[in-house]
């Protein structure tokens, strides 16, 4: 009979090749250069990335640049572009150079979902010319996905806007992951403080949209709010594609909260704010969202319901960098890209820059103009960033990846329509703000 023979042949070959795979040499992860210099790229762990003279340094970005959340990813990407521009010390819309090489951005889409983190991350990880990656936009594409894929190859992943606490939790942190965005534990604490002490509310309800970001915030809020003595009347969840939240809101109304905290993305967040007004039982109850909600789409989709809602939003630290730089940066952003559509472009700017500093420390310049960057050393160098004056404050990176750790993160609460993004008021001032370090927030 033909079949068994065919099958046997294939199985045999398969078994042989598995053995062969074990003996096969590795796919080169780095450029394998290793010519002069103190580092032997062939033996050091994770190898190096090498650029010949004239070749640009390639930096990957893995951000949410399509779909409803493009406001978040595009905004961060613009921050990166401004950072490349500023390499020559001036915001002049012409890119500068890093250690004598141009910088080229390879932009991938994280789709604000695990799939994007996987596909974009794999693509970048398999490209041996990528020096580091700035991303992701959404915590869901990083957590357990992109951070692992890139980390396994020794590629540093630094995020401008991942805020979920789990990413830098000692139990689950990936050694090659950092972020310049604040840890959401801080934002949750500020929100809890605001609601309890500033507004004087004792009961609140939470609604998350099943994303790690929102779920992290609501559970953090619950912990801190209850520590202060408040009560969470009910914790609910929605699916972000639902249009109708009225039954849910009615059911929440029965538990008589004074405020609803819904740190979700749009359009769900906007629709909830709008539909709240139609529920008799929720008259007088306030609505609060967080930075995921505070995008220009909120104004568009919520319409007049936006007024009177509260949003928590990260602020640049007042004692932060040379105030001139902040002003110049904001002007440059406006000139080149219009009004910012999200809050994290400054974090992206800082992320690029602390990596650039680390590169300057560890890069080895060859006599022929080539550049060798050992990956493990690059990672070590950026984790040693201390007291770096960035746009978002003083950055010091700790071993679990939070670079906004020692720095007091400034979270502000705004009363809409006063929100400093497109659709709101560019000169808006927060009605409440707190500056906390991570340790202060966690109370440890």
């Amino acid at each position, binding site marked *: 009979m033909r079949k068994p023979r065919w099958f046997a042949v294939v199985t045999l070959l398969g078994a042989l090749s598995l053995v062969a795979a074990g003996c096969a040499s590795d796919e080169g992860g780095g450029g394998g250069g290793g010519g002069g210099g103190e580092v032997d790229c062939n033996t050091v762990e994770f190898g190096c990335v090498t650029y010949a003279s004239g070749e640009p340094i390639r930096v990957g970005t893995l951000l949410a640049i399509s779909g409803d959340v493009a406001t978040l990813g595009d905004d961060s990407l613009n921050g990166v572009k401004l950072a490349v521009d500023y390499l020559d010390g001036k915001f002049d819309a012409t890119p500068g150079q890093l250690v004598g090489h141009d910088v080229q951005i390879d932009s991938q889409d994280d789709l604000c979902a695990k799939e994007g983190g996987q596909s974009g991350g794999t693509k970048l990880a398999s490209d041996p010319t990528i020096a580091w990656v700035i991303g992701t936009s959404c915590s869901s594409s990083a957590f357990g996905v992109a951070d692992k894929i890139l980390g396994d190859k020794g590629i540093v992943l630094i995020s401008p806007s991942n805020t979920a606490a789990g990413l830098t939790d000692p139990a689950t942190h990936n050694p090659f992951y950092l972020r310049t965005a604040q840890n959401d534990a801080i934002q949750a604490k500020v929100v809890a403080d605001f609601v309890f002490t500033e507004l004087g509310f004792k009961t609140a309800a939470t609604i998350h949209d099943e994303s790690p970001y929102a779920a992290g915030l609501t559970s953090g809020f619950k912990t801190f709010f209850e520590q202060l003595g408040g009560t969470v009347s009910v914790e609910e969840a929605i*699916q972000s594609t639902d249009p109708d939240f009225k039954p849910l809101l009615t059911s929440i109304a029965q538990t008589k909260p004074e405020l609803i905290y819904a740190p979700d993305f749009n359009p769900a967040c906007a629709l909830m704010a709008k539909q709240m007004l139609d529920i008799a039982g929720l008259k007088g109850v306030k609505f609060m969202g967080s930075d995921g909600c505070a995008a220009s789409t909120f104004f568009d989709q919520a319409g007049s319901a936006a007024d009177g809602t509260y949003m928590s939003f990260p602020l640049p630290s007042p004692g932060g960098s040379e105030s001139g730089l902040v002003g110049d940066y904001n002007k440059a952003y406006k000139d080149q890209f219009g009004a910012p559509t999200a809050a994290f472009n400054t974090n992206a700017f800082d992320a690029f820059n602390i990596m650039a500093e680390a590169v300057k420390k560890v890069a080895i310049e060859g006599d022929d103009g080539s550049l060798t960057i050992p990956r493990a050393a690059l990672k070590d160098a950026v984790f040693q960033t201390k007291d770096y004056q960035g746009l978002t404050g003083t950055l010091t990176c700790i071993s679990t990846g939070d670079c906004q750790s020692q720095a007091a993160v400034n979270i502000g609460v705004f009363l809409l329509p006063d929100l400093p993004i497109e659709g709101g008021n560019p000169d808006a001032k927060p009605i409440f703000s707190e500056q906390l370090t991570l340790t202060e927030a966690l109370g440890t």
Partner: protein
Amino acid sequence: MATEAQGAAVGRLARFPVRRAVQWVLGIGILVGAAYAAYRTLSLGLFSAAAWRDLVVFGVAQGAIYALIALGYTMVYGILRMINFAHGEVFMWGAFVSYFVARTLQNSGFMQSSPYVAIVILLVAAIAGSIGVAVLLERVAYRPLRNAPRLVPLITAIGASLFLQNTARGFFGPQTRGYPVPDVLGGTWTILGVPILRTQAIVIVVALVVMIALTLFVSRTKTGKSIRAVAEDKDIASLMGIDVDRVVVTTFVIGGMLAGVAAVLFVMVFQVVGPFMGFVLGIKAFTAAVLGGIGSIAGAALGGLILGLLESVAPSLFLTGLHIPGPNQLKDVIAFAILVLVLIFRPGGLLGTGEAEKV
């Protein structure tokens, strides 16, 4: 050695209707379970009567929208015996067409100055858009497959649905947009002592009117009769001199009209449009149609109503009593579970014939 008596006994045992027994046990068990859960919830006393009333109203309003879309599904199924999966997209395109008109009206101030005329214009635009897409679908995708085995047009419909959604995405961008509505629609009316949102009241009333009109149309007019004839038996109808192609197109047009109306109602209530809004709604409406008994107008209406009510009331009624966290998250589970249960007991849907349909 088997005796006669033993043989007879075995025979009786073999004829014991296992399936029916299981069905009965299952059915009673579920009813008891549901009643118990409801009892627990009500005894918790969390919800005031007003709250339940509101939930019911919300459910009815949402159900009205489901019913309108479900009608489109059911009519097409009646004459072509195929599920037009792309009907949700017919709805979505109607909404989008009216969106662009609405935007122009808003920008020119016309929307606020003469809101009623504006709404009529939007209705016309939405209906035109929906009918356009529906007719296009029929001509391009479904007509060539009239006689193909069942699976084929079904898959074509899925493909058409994907295609239409993503074309809208490509044309208009993937983001959801706010839809401008006249201010006059805000606020509530109090009907029979029950405060109802104006938009919801309008939705319910319009849906009722449309459904009654449709029923009258199908039963009284000549076209309606020819539709029913084709639904009964396509080939004999054509032998009787009915132009089947015309009738099919007319049915799609009617379905498109219904979807267009549903689109305007939807945007009035929720005030957002997006390329993917039709997809989930379409599935739900289709579920409603099947629940009520596909092929029957009353069935679609009933199914829509029940589905709307279930989604609105059931999570609170059944799940809070059992202390299940996040009950509203599970509303889809309840809806589909009910669908499965109904189909187990009545494979043709609630108003269906009670028999599994012959292929």
